[in-house]
């Protein structure tokens, strides 16, 4: 392990060499930043991973059932397991997707499930990301470089190789491909995750495109070369969000979308990964209901726990939230990326009163959660000293012909000792995640 730590700087230098960056807008200007890498890995034991794997597969399978139900017959609403307000008023519910069945009925092909481990070693689900979860490329390339930098570490430890992510991803695309090439649709190089888009294209053999070379004709999608020759597209791993996907169906002013791509999809002529409309299932308000979903669709108890969550929408929960405000973290369901998160005890009296007014006026907009006592991970600080920091784990769950969990994940940590927020957009770094084979 020591050789890994000694190599920390080398690995960061190599990451720079390979352009492992993410884009960020500061004061209206686009900048590329390196994603700081910490060389002490998070280690998950073999039996622990087997438990996580069972729980994650169960969760993602239930979420896929839920999406098929919501955009289909809506049994879960009719059976009153989830109140209709939580579905149809969710920003992520897209009416144009109603009644549309994606190829092989898979909605969430690539799911990024965020977990945290508490001090007593239990794992909790923090949130589900079923739209365009990003981050798998970073541990993929970091592992490649670590193996070069400290080969002895990998011959002495039994670490499951995580460089198969591209194969898993390709399998998932091929599984739903309707007959044609695979493409990765990126908003372009000024997107925060452009490195990942281009790296995954390289590694999966899919064609990277910004959509300018794609047309929809006779309800099929085609990729056009410089001689005007057309090649049919069978699967689009799109890294642009739903609202920008098709100006003819969603946000009309979108210039990065492909006109009529939704019609080709509606008619079953192309697969979109992930399916549009998934936002209804990873809504923070819906999160509360996921254990109920697992019971409803699969007839099983949830293996992985949610963080204890309250919905101010229900009167008794509202009462609890008001009584225990200072011990809770309140999240705005419409926000993401670590924004819209308020810790009850961090507010001044005045702000608190203001916030409670807002909460009472718009109870559906918020969820409240108990603050989990994170199990901190060690990182190396600027002086090379080990210091504990908050960290989470994004597990990647891929649904092809079966649902598989990538034996690794993106461990993000907060560099600020007082912060719980680990998002790269807010200055966090990442670690490799080792799953031990025995």
């Amino acid at each position: 392990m020591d050789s890994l730590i000694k190599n920390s700087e080398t690995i960061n230098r190599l990451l720079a060499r390979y352009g492992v960056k993410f884009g960020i807008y500061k004061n209206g200007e686009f900048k590329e930043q390196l994603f700081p890498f910490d060389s002490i890995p998070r280690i998950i034991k073999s039996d622990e991973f087997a438990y996580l794997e069972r729980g994650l597969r169960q969760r993602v399978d239930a979420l896929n059932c839920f999406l098929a139900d919501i955009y289909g017959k809506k049994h879960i609403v009719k059976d009153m397991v989830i109140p209709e307000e939580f579905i149809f008023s969710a920003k992520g519910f897209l009416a144009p997707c109603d009644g549309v069945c994606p190829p092989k009925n898979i909605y969430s092909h690539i799911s990024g499930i965020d977990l945290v481990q508490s001090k007593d070693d239990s794992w909790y689900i923090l949130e589900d990301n079923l739209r365009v979860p990003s981050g798998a490329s970073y541990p993929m390339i970091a592992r490649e470089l670590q193996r070069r930098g400290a080969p002895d570490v990998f011959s002495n430890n039994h670490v499951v190789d995580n460089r198969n992510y591209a194969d898993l991803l390709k399998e998932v695309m091929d599984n739903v491909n309707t007959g044609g090439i695979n493409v990765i649709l990126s908003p372009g190089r000024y997107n925060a995750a452009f490195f990942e888009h281009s790296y995954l294209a390289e590694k999966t053999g899919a064609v990277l495109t910004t959509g300018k070379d794609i047309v929809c004709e006779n309800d099929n999608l085609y990729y056009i070369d410089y001689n005007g020759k057309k090649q049919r597209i069978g699967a689009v791993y799109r890294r642009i969000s739903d609202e920008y996907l098709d100006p003819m169906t969603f946000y009309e002013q979108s210039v990065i979308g492909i006109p009529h791509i939704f019609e080709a999809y509606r008619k079953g002529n192309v697969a979109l990964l992930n399916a549009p409309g998934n936002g209804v299932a990873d809504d923070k308000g819906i999160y509360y209901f996921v254990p109920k979903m697992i019971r409803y669709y699969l007839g099983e108890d949830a293996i992985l726990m949610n963080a204890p969550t309250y919905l101010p929408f229900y009167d008794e929960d509202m009462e609890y939230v008001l009584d225990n405000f200072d011990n809770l973290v309140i999240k705005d369901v419409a926000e993401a990326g670590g924004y819209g998160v308020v810790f009850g005890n961090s507010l001044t009296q005045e702000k608190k009163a203001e916030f409670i007014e807002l909460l009472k006026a718009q109870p559906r907009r918020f969820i409240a959660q108990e603050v989990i006592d994170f199990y901190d991970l060690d990182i190396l600080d600027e002086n090379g000293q080990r210091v504990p920091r908050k960290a989470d784990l994004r597990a990647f769950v891929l649904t092809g012909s079966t649902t598989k969990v990538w034996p690794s994940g993106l461990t993000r940590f907060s560099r600020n000792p007082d912060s719980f927020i680990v998002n790269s957009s807010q200055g966090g770094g990442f670690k490799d995640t080792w799953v031990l084979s025995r």
Partner: protein
Amino acid sequence: MGIITVDKSDHLFWLGRYTERVHTTLKYYLKTEDVMLDSDPEYYSVLCQKIGIIDVYGSRENFKKRYPFDETDENSIISSLNKAYDNAIVMRDYIGTETMAYIQLAIDDIKKAEKSNSPIVDLMLVIDHILAFWGCVNDIIDDEQIRNIIKLGKGVERLDLYLSLGSSDYEIRREYSRTKGFLKKSGLRYDESVLYTIDSMLDGSDFNYGNVKNLLRNLIQG
């Protein structure tokens, strides 16, 4: 890979041009530095004139600071390198992460050279990276067409610069014959009649550099 769109062929072509521009102008810059040492301290203005950029430098010191390193000067070497990067970054899936890394290294090292006590020695590293980049193009990129479009860009830029800098007839003919090979294999559309005219000009013993340069600019279509 099989499919190259208009946009992508454009990026490959300009990737070839800008990497070559960095390579040849950097080499010529090193030569200029040498001349300025003792024989002609004002020689930089000759360089500007030859490659057709406005001499905004005013002094040898300013030229040494700005021409290689000033990112706000669009004629500087680093600006060409940045443009090469812009074209490379969107083509990772075609040229490969390994190949792209050399553009990144060139950028990192040119920035280091700016702050170095011996910038010339450090700038040699930049040339090394460009050569390694071309090595990767030959070695790593499987698709012949992709290779040929990059090399076509490189050839066109080199010819243009050699004609401007007044290289020998022999060098011009050699580069032209290479470039013609890449052009035919690139699959890009070009004007046969222009090619024919250049051919016959170069067949003669004496040809006008300026005329060839102008014709070259009209060679590739769309």
